[in-house]
C-alpha cells in the first residue's frame, strides 16, 4: 500500500478528512497505516535540493561533534545523559543521514526520524546558544519535521492540527461566527461589572489589534474577557478582527509550511484591512514565534517583519505599567515567593526577557529567578507540540523533570507562566510529580492587582 486512507502525503483540506482522522481514536489506524506508508525517495530528495539551503548544509558540515550541546538539552539531562539525546547526534543521525543517502531512506528510518525530531526535541533552540559554531539543532529539527510532513510521517495530532488551520484558519474548529459571537458574549457578561467595557470588532485604525489563541474562544473565553478588562482599564483604543484573529500555528509544529503561510496570511490580511497602529498577541509563546518571528518569511514579506509592529502580551503589559496606563496597588503585590517561566519562543527566540523582568519587579515582592533563567532557561517540556502528542506522552513526562527541579530550587509555590503550552506543561508536571505548586497567566493576576480609576468602577446600587 503506497499511501493510507488517513496516513498519507496529502495535507488535510476538507472537513470530511478531518472528521475521519478525529474518529480514529488515538490514531490507531493512522499509525498502522504509517507502518505501510511508502517513502517517495525521489520527491524527498527533490524537496531537499529545493529547500535545504546553505545554512543548514553548512551546519551539518561544520559540526565538530564536540558535544558542547549535550548539557544544553533538557532531554539529555532528564534522561541520565543518554548519548543518543545529544542534539548533534539527534540531527546528524536523522537529517544528516537522509541527506548523505540522498533521500534514499525507508519507512523505518523516517519513523525513527519522526520519533527523534518530535519526542527528543521541542525546537526550543537552547542548544544553539551553547554551540561554539552557532549551530541551531532546533531549526534543523523543525526543518526535518517539514520534510517528514511532506512524506506523510507526522504524528496523528499534528496532521489534525495542521488540517484545522487549513480549514478553519485556527487550531480548533472555531468559525468566524463562533468567534464574533464569543466576543459579543464576553462583552455582555463582563460589562456588568465593568461599565462601558466593549470588545470592538473590526474597528478600523485602532491603536491595538488584539489576536488570540483559538483555545480561548473555544474553551476559555474568560481569557478574552480578561484582556478586555485590562485594555478597558488602561484606556486603550483596541479592536479584534472578525477574521485573522488566530495567532497560533500547529502547522508550524507539524512542519506544514503551506498551512503556516495560509494561517499567518489571514492575520496579515486583517492588518491590511483594519490598519491598526500595532498588534498585541495574547499570552502564548509559539503563537508569537509563528506570527511575529517566522510568519513574515512564510508570507514572503521582504522586510522579515510583520506588516504592523507587533507586541507580545508581556511587552504590552510592561509598557502599560511603565507609562502608568495600568497602576498596581502596592498592597496587592504578590507577597509570597514567585518565579517566572520563560517561554522559549518569546524570551529566548523573541528577546523579551527584560519585559518579563520589569513586570515581575512591579507585581511581586519576592521574585525568584529560576536557574538558569531568561534566554538560558529550559523549555517547560511541552514545547514543539509535545503537550498534545499521545504517542510521545511518556517521553514528554520524563522531560518535565528538569522544569520540576528548577521550580523546586526557587522555593516558590507560584509560577507565572504567560504561555498556553508552558501553563499546560506546568499543570501536567504538578499532576504527575505533585510538588505543590500553583501556576497562572498574567491577566488574572493583574486584574486582582490594578488600581481601577474611579470612573471605571462598577456603580454601587
Amino acid at each position, binding site marked *: 500500500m503506497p499511501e493510507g486512507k488517513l496516513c498519507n502525503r496529502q495535507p488535510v483540506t476538507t472537513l470530511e478528512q478531518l472528521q475521519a482522522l478525529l*474518529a480514529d481514536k488515538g490514531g490507531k489506524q493512522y499509525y498502522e497505516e504509517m507502518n505501510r506508508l511508502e517513502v517517495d525517495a525521489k520527491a524527498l530528495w527533490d524537496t531537499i535540493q529545493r529547500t535545504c539551503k546553505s545554512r543548514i548544509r553548512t551546519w551539518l558540515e561544520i559540526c565538530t561533534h564536540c558535544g558542547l550541546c549535550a548539557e544544553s538539552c533538557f532531554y539529555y539531562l532528564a534522561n541520565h545523559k543518554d548519548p543518543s539525546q545529544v542534539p548533534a547526534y539527534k540531527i546528524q543521525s536523522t537529517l544528516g543521514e537522509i541527506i548523505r543517502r540522498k533521500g534514499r531512506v525507508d519507512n523505518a528510518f523516517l519513523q525513527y526520524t519522526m520519533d527523534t525530531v518530535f519526542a527528543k526535541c521541542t525546537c526550543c533552540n537552547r542548544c544553539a546558544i551553547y554551540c561554539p559554531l552557532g549551530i541551531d539543532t532546533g531549526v534543523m529539527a523543525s526543518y526535518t519535521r517539514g520534510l517528514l510532513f511532506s512524506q506523510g510521517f507526522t504524528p496523528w495530532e499534528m496532521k489534525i492540527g495542521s488540517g484545522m488551520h487549513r480549514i478553519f484558519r485556527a487550531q480548533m474548529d472555531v468559525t468566524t461566527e463562533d468567534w464574533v459571537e464569543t466576543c459579543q458574549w464576553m462583552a455582555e*457578561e463582563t460589562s456588568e461589572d465593568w461599565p462601558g467595557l466593549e470588545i470592538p470588532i473590526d474597528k478600523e485604525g485602532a491603536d491595538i489589534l488584539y489576536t488570540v489563541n483559538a483555545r480561548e474562544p*473555544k474553551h476559555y473565553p474568560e481569557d478574552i474577557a480578561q484582556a478586555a478588562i485590562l485594555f478597558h482599564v488602561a484606556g486603550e483604543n483596541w479592536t479584534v478582527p472578525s477574521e485573522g484573529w488566530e495567532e497560533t500555528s500547529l502547522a508550524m509544529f507539524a512542519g506544514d509550511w503551506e498551512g503556516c503561510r495560509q494561517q499567518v496570511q489571514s492575520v496579515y490580511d486583517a492588518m491590511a484591512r483594519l490598519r491598526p497602529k500595532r498588534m498585541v498577541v495574547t499570552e502564548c509563546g509559539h503563537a508569537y514565534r509563528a506570527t511575529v518571528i517566522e510568519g513574515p518569511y512564510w508570507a514572503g514579506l521582504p522586510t522579515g517583519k510583520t506588516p504592523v509592529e507587533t507586541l507580545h502580551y508581556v511587552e504590552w503589559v510592561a509598557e502599560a505599567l511603565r507609562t502608568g496606563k495600568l497602576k498596581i496597588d502596592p498592597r496587592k503585590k504578590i507577597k509570597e515567593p514567585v518565579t517566572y517561566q520563560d517561554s522559549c519562543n518569546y524570551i529566548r527566540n523573541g528577546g523579551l526577557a527584560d519585559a518579563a523582568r520589569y513586570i515581575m519587579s512591579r507585581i511581586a515582592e519576592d521574585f525568584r529567578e529560576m536557574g538558569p533563567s531568561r534566554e538560558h532557561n529550559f523549555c517547560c517540556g511541552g514545547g514543539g507540540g509535545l503537550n498534545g502528542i*499521545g504517542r510521545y506522552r511518556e517521553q514528554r513526562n520524563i522531560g518535565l523533570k528538569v522544569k520540576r527541579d528548577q521550580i523546586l530550587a526557587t522555593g516558590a509555590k507560584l509560577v507565572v507562566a504567560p504561555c498556553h503550552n508552558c*501553563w*499546560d506543561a506546568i499543570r501536567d508536571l504538578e499532576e504527575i510529580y505533585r510538588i505543590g505548586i500553583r501556576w497562572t497567566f498574567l491577566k*488574572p493576576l493583574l486584574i486582582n492587582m490594578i488600581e481601577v480609576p474611579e470612573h471605571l468602577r462598577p456603580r454601587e446600587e
Partner: protein
Amino acid sequence: MFKKLLFATTASPVCDNAAKVAFDLEMKWEAKLILLHVLGIPSRGFGLQVVDVRTGEKEQPSPDYLEWVTEELKTTYAAFLEESNARIVTAIGEPYREILRLARKEDVDMILMGAHSRDEEVGAARHRQVAGSTLRRVAKAARCPVVIVNRPCTTCWKLFSNIVVGTDFSKASESALLWGYKLAREVGANLHVFHAVDITAGGLTRPAGQTDLEQRIQEARRRIEHHLLPKIKGYEKTTVEVWEGIPYVEILKFARARQADLIVMAHHTREVDPEEAEMGSTVEEVVLRSSCPVASVNHPDKVADLL
C-alpha cells in the same frame, strides 16, 4: 413561565434530586427540557485529550466516546426518559462555561443543577471542586434563574404554597423578588419577603447595640414596604419579615419556620476569580444546608415583563 429548561448534570447521584425536579417541570409545564452533561475538561495548551469529569482519567472525545457517554446518560435517566422528550446534549469544556454557553444560545428560562457531592463517589474531590465553582460561576453570569436542588424535593412545583425571597436590597435581588413573585402568582403560593440585618457587618468585635439593631430592622422593613412591595403590585399573599443575625442562618431558620418550598435569592459577588473568593457567600451556605431548592436570580431578563 417555563418554556425551556436546562438541566445541567454530572450524571452522578448528586444530581438525582435535581433530575426529579427537572423532569417533573418538563411534564407539568409542558416545557422543552435540555439535559446537558459536560463530560471533559480540555487543556489550555494544544491537546486532543480531555479530563473526564467523572473518572478524572484522560480521554479522547472521539465520536464513539461521545456516543458512549450519551448512551450512559440514557441509561442513568432511563426511568425519566420514558415519559420525557428531553434532548440530551454533551459538551467538552469547563462545566460552568458550557452551561452558560448553552443557556445563552437556547435562551432557557431556568437552569437546574445539583449541588454537593457524596464522598463515596469516584473522584469526589474533583466533583466537589467542580460543583462548587460551577455553581458560583453559573449563578453569577446566567441571565436566567439557576435552581439548585440539593435534597429531595417532593412537592410538585405547581403545588408550592410558600416561596421565600431573601433580599439584600441590591439590584440583583430585585430581580429575585420579581421572579419569586411571578412564580408565586402562577402557582398561587404565599410570597414571604425576608431580610436579615447582618449583625456581623462591621466586624464581630464590635457587636451592634440593641437600639441600633432595632433601628436597622425598622429601616429594612420600611425599604421593603416602600421600595419593594410596589414592584409586586400588591400581591395579596405577601408577607414581610425582617430578622437580625447572620444572614444565611436566619434565612434558613425562616424558611424552615414557613415550611418554604423554595428559597429565592440573588447571588451576586464581585470577586473576579471565583476560586479565590471565600467559600461561604450567603447563597452557597444556604444551598448546602437548605432542605428545599434554592433559586439564584441575578438578572432581570426573565422578569422583564414585570418591570
